[in-house]
């Protein structure tokens, strides 16, 4: 199953993410976000980073989860390619992001936006469109 694809957008970055279930959708969104901005990886020594995210909405928690990962990436200079969920509830997530230390990224994501955001059911599971301000 395709994990994500980059869609055309005039000024920002838009990706469509796929997953058989919510956990896979969230993991693929994380991967799509960081792969799209091309990390300049310093070493392949994995650095787990514990995060806690709560949201008022079952749908919008994906945006909040990605915003949290972006924040962690910015302050720790890390890029995340995987996630292990400890708690995965509709509006609460505790997880360990798995990533590498980076020198930087080729592109800068300023933020994960709520613009045109939705999670939709498909015959294979779920998909979400996400626009990032770059």
């Amino acid at each position: 199953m395709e994990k994500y694809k980059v869609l055309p957008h005039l000024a920002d970055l838009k990706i469509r993410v796929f997953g058989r279930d919510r956990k896979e959708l969230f993991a693929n969104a994380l991967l799509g976000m960081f792969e799209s901005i091309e990390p300049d990886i310093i070493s392949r020594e994995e650095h787990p980073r514990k995060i806690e995210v709560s949201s008022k909405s079952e749908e919008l928690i994906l945006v909040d989860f990605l915003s949290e990962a972006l924040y962690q990436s910015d302050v720790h200079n890390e890029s995340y390619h995987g996630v292990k969920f400890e708690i995965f509830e509709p509006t609460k997530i505790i997880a360990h992001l798995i990533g590498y230390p980076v020198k930087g990224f080729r592109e800068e994501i300023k933020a994960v936006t709520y613009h045109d955001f939705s999670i939709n059911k498909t015959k294979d599971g779920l998909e979400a469109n996400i626009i990032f301000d770059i």
Partner: protein
Amino acid sequence: MIEYKDLKKIKDYIFEIPKSYRKDMRVPARVYATEQMLKDIGGDRSLWQLVNVATLPGIQKYSLAMPDIHEGYGFPIGGVAAMDFNEGVVSPGGVGYDINCGVRLLRSHISADEIKDYLRDTAHQINRDVPSGVGRSGELDLTPGQIDAILEKGVPEMIKMGFGREEDIEFIEENGCLAGADASKISDRAKRRGHDQLGTLGSGNHFLEIQRVDEIYDKNLAEELGLEKDRVVVMIHTGSRGLGHQVCTDYVKMMVPKIDGWGIELADRELACAPLKTKEAKDYLAAMAASANFAWSNRQMITHHVRGAWKRILEPHGLDVTLDIIYDVAHNMAKVEEHEVDGEKKKLCVHRKGATRAFGPGRPELNKLYQRIGQPVLIPGTMGTSSYVLIGTNEAEAESFGTVCHGAGRRMSRGEAKRKITGPEVRKELESRGIHVECASSRGLAEEAPLAYKDVDNVVDVVEQAKLAKRVVKLKPMAVIKGG
């Protein structure tokens, strides 16, 4: 999709989507453009976004778009919305994630001919001294006390710390310190992102250019600004970096779930807003002001580095190394201003997202010189094309809440630009025209290639023909310094 036929021509260069176009519109939506520009704009969703802005509570007269309009998220880029201060809302998305992204112009005391032999060395030194690209830190690592002081006091605090001259202050919008800033309204997370980012350029379309005055349109105004043909200037384009991004993220997240409780129906979640009378709105405005102060301080720190590089490279050759600020102006901001609506002065919260304040003579917000002649408006072009210095007019205050465009405006996605031209090709083309390029990223160069943007000359022409601002000088790049 909104089509050309849905727009009504009000007068030359002004088109309107009437309030009747969609039943949730509170006011019409207006665009400054030519017919051809409108046809080009129709290819994206920016006009649909402009109509969405016209549905926001308390919006006055019309939602507005400048000729550099292009699709954004929530608001279009190049969008303007003025809200009644008592009945209206403030929308963090209407300011954008890069709070107080803006432009500063420094005037040198040397000519293009005088710097010619040292241009590469000077650009290279600036590139070494001003970190650019994603994730690069500056030389300052602010303590919590220092960052709070800068957030609340802005550029005057930077000058107290030794990063500038006292006389810089009055040549910065709001004197480099927006009133009402409160560092306690900014999360520790935002401060953690910003503590080592002062003096950094960032990436994307942010840049630093050494330019020369190429053409003078108004000799008297140019003289007032100390600009003559071939005078060298330095343009700085950047904003509030990760700190501003986090502040916007925090406040959009906080406002989204409260919208229903305030009885607001949104056409797009990214237009999340708060009624101006609420604590949430007041907190956001205090945090936004602090972020704006951070952005002005960032451009101040970069100015400090540029002055250092100028001195180091040019002083040994006996050149005058003074760099004065001509002006520093924001193009992502919501500001409380007085404007005339239906013949009466009204207190408004004016959102400018990718749009520049352009006050004419007489406004008390300006310093004495600019109260006399009007405010300089700095319009960066694209790499290798022209940038402009304009002067604001009183007509702009009447027509557009004292606002003009902010640049050329993107017309091609980054991906499309990369398919049409490579980074080395862009570099070669610029170098062949005598423009030195300091940029480590070839793809970054391709993505920001001039062909990816509208023609800035046309954009500025519309602004001038609509009498929103007067052209003073055209600037041409000599060296481009950018991140990636």
